[in-house]
């Protein structure tokens, strides 16, 4: 079996899973209006990390490791995230039985701009190099496995980690990931006209696009169970391609439907066992519509669904990880979080979007993800 051992989220709503979850339960939203020419000529809403706090938290860890090297903002976020998740376990980072998988879409892409205060070597922009930096910092003997598969990267990385443990290649796998809000991505999504002028409103009638966010997240999977807390296991997962369009999702939700079907098959569960769904829920008109069709096609229309994007925006390579972490915390606490930004259902296939945070015993959950390139992923996780 593959157990979820420990986790972390570094975001605008806090440093650590508990801090983030508490903020969300309190209804706090991390998406704020950003006015900074560094990112975009006009104001735009986004969820940004408190850089001062990041530097402070990072320095404490760097001192512990007696490390005086320079690190980029994203590297600091990932290091702080991994370090926190690790510190909650007895997992041996120096063991060859422990692997690290890194999920990111654009890594240190802010380094392409000529406006950076600090300069780094040119290859620092390459994603494998980011893996090397993380490996070296923690002194793990294995090359970091870097996955870059658009917005399903995080869910895919968790899926790969579980496969490594099931096939006994590793005992513990640290899945970490992160992405930044940069001029590169803000201007790109602006050109796609897919950014909402306000904080995003997943599944809402008036939804008008996504919000971007920066975050790092970590989940540690292991063949060993937790001794002191509720055990949650990875049951199964899958990815699938729409084979339809590189930016628009399939109108019938084909890839998403296939990924869920395969994940359920892999998990050896019945669809009616699923009692909560964490959707991708970007709040673009097409994504949410597509997901509702896919959920409906699986006859899961009455299962409570939420999207975390209304709190932290779309965090790209971190999204699948941090949304899984929130899902794990929902399961531990038996609390279902409302979909921040959602008011009135605005999709053609009615599904059960959570509009207020409430308590409910949940045992088996589905995590969905979709992204550019027609990619889709689904994970099933369950209490034991």
């Amino acid at each position: 079996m593959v157990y979820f051992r420990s986790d972390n989220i570094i975001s605008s709503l806090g440093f650590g899973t508990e801090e983030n979850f508490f903020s969300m339960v309190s209804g706090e939203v991390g998406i704020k209006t950003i006015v900074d020419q560094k990112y975009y000529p006009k104001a735009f809403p986004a969820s940004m990390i408190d850089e001062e706090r990041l530097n402070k938290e990072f320095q404490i860890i760097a001192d512990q490791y007696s490390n005086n090297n320079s690190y980029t903002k994203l590297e600091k976020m990932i290091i702080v995230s991994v370090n926190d998740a690790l510190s909650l376990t007895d997992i041996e980072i120096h063991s060859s039985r422990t692997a690290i998988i890194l999920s990111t879409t654009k890594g240190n892409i802010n380094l392409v701009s000529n406006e950076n205060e600090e300069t780094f070597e040119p290859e620092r922009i390459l994603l494998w190099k980011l893996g090397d930096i993380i490996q070296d910092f923690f002194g793990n003997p294995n090359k970091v496995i870097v996955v870059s598969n658009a917005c399903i990267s995080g869910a895919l990385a968790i899926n790969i980690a579980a496969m490594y443990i099931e096939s006994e290649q590793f005992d513990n796998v640290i899945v970490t990931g992160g992405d930044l809000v940069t001029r590169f991505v803000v201007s790109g999504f602006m050109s796609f006209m897919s950014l909402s002028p306000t904080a995003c409103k997943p599944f809402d009638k008036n939804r008008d696009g996504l919000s971007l966010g920066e975050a790092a997240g970590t989940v540690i999977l292991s063949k060993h169970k937790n001794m002191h807390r509720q055990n949650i296991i990875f049951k199964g997962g899958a990815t699938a391609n729409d084979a339809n369009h590189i930016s628009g999702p399939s109108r019938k939700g084909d890839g998403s439907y296939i990924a869920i079907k395969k994940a359920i098959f892999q998990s050896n569960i019945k669809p009616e066992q699923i009692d909560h769904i964490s959707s991708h829920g970007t709040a673009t008109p097409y994504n949410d519509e597509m997901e509702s069709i896919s959920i409906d096609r699986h006859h899961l229309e009455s299962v409570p669904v939420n999207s975390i994007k209304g709190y932290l925006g779309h965090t790209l390579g971190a999204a699948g990880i941090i949304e899984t972490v929130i899902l794990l915390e929902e399961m531990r606490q038996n609390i279902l979080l409302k979909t921040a930004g959602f008011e009135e259902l605005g999709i053609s296939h009615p599904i059960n979007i959570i509009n207020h945070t409430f308590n409910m015993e949940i045992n088996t959950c589905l995590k969905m993800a979709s992204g550019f390139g027609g990619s889709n992923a689904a994970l099933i996780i369950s209490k034991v």
Partner: protein
Amino acid sequence: MKELFINSYCHIKNNRIFVDGKLLYSDKVADSLSLFAKSGYRYIKPSYNKFFKMDEISKLGFLAAEVLLSGVNLTVYNEEDIAVILSNSHSTLVTDLNHQLTIDDYNNFFPSPSLFVYTLPNIMIGEISIRHKLRGENAFFIVENFKADIITNHINSLYLAHKANAFVGGWVNQSENDYEAFLYWVSNEGNILHNAFEINKLYNLIY
């Protein structure tokens, strides 16, 4: 379970296209991937207008897949069971730099959606999947140099878990001054065993 084999592979580098180690096409004039991709397209004649909308690295991956899969009867497989598992070292660096050029200067600020969409390495997987109707598993790995075992490992795991039974695997890379594609087809048929040793041998076949 039956073993996995490689029964077809394709290299594209230095303005040459090879299938199963044999030269299929070469262009002595083209001095860039952009020009070579165009001449390669004219030779292969896929009549697929969307090709010209792709960025250079997607064109490279598309052409390699076109050549690789031309000899494969895809209809015997379920489209949901065909996986595409690729890797490279530079992600989409060249396209990233092109997008950055459109946004460096606020006085000449025109980010292009059709360029930005290609700043993700798995868009190439999407293009190949659309062209050949492949709806199975996907993954894109970033490694410093070609590394057969990451892909082999992933393909074997998918196969053992019954998540897929046929695979396009390989490497498609574009750096600022070079490019290279090496794709192979993995299924129950063929005579080259599917393992990292054999794949490294095939990869190194063409200089």
